[in-house]
């Protein structure tokens, strides 16, 4: 079981959500975060001569999946979140030791 954390641009959230749904994955947790990366500001925001690393709004997506689905999910997110300029985001994969479904009390891979 793996936890996939994807930090993407807010404008790409609906695209990624739709792409995941089309790939048969409708479960996720989403919240807004601030972060800085190679891109110092979004191109449509005018900031003359200011290259300080400032924090920009991003959306963080957390998806728990079983091991064999990891590659597929990462590919789907990476494809849907792609944009023409820098700062498309990052995807991290973590290990989950145990997973519980609260309603039934199930454990392990079938609870995901």
């Amino acid at each position, binding site marked *: 079981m793996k*936890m996939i954390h994807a930090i993407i641009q807010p404008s790409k959230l609906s695209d990624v*959500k*739709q792409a*995941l*749904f089309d790939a048969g994955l*409708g*479960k*996720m*947790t*989403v*919240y807004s975060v601030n972060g800085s990366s190679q891109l110092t500001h979004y191109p449509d925001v005018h900031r003359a001569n200011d290259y300080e690393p400032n924090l920009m709004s991003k959306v963080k997506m*957390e998806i*728990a999946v079983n091991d064999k689905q990891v590659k597929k999910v990462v590919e789907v997110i990476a494809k849907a979140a792609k944009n023409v300029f820098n700062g498309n985001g990052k995807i991290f994969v*973590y*290990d*989950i*030791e*145990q*997973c*519980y*479904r*609260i*309603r039934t*009390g199930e454990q392990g891979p079938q*609870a*995901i």
Partner: protein
Amino acid sequence: MIAHKIAMKMITAIVRSQKLQDIQTLLVTEGIERFTVATVMGCGSQCGYSEGGKKSAIEVNLLKKIKFEIEVPADKVGGLVDKIMTLCRTPRFGDGKIFVMNIPECFGM
């Protein structure tokens, strides 16, 4: 900076937003006063729709949830997870999930 040598685990519980106060009380009575809470949006296998509900144009409907991040020593994990599960259980979909992850190192600042 002191590195703790005891094995630590992180419990991430994503539950219904109305359960915030209940879990908070539970944690304090259990003697766990250190935890992080965040308001998140999310959905499970039902894509955010109740059973038999009419789907709208949006196919994935994100609902308001509360995320708890609790760091505890490895021996306390089992008991705490059971108590959170009993507290949050309802017969309806959308009760949430609990994930347990390993923390390789933990520092007190």
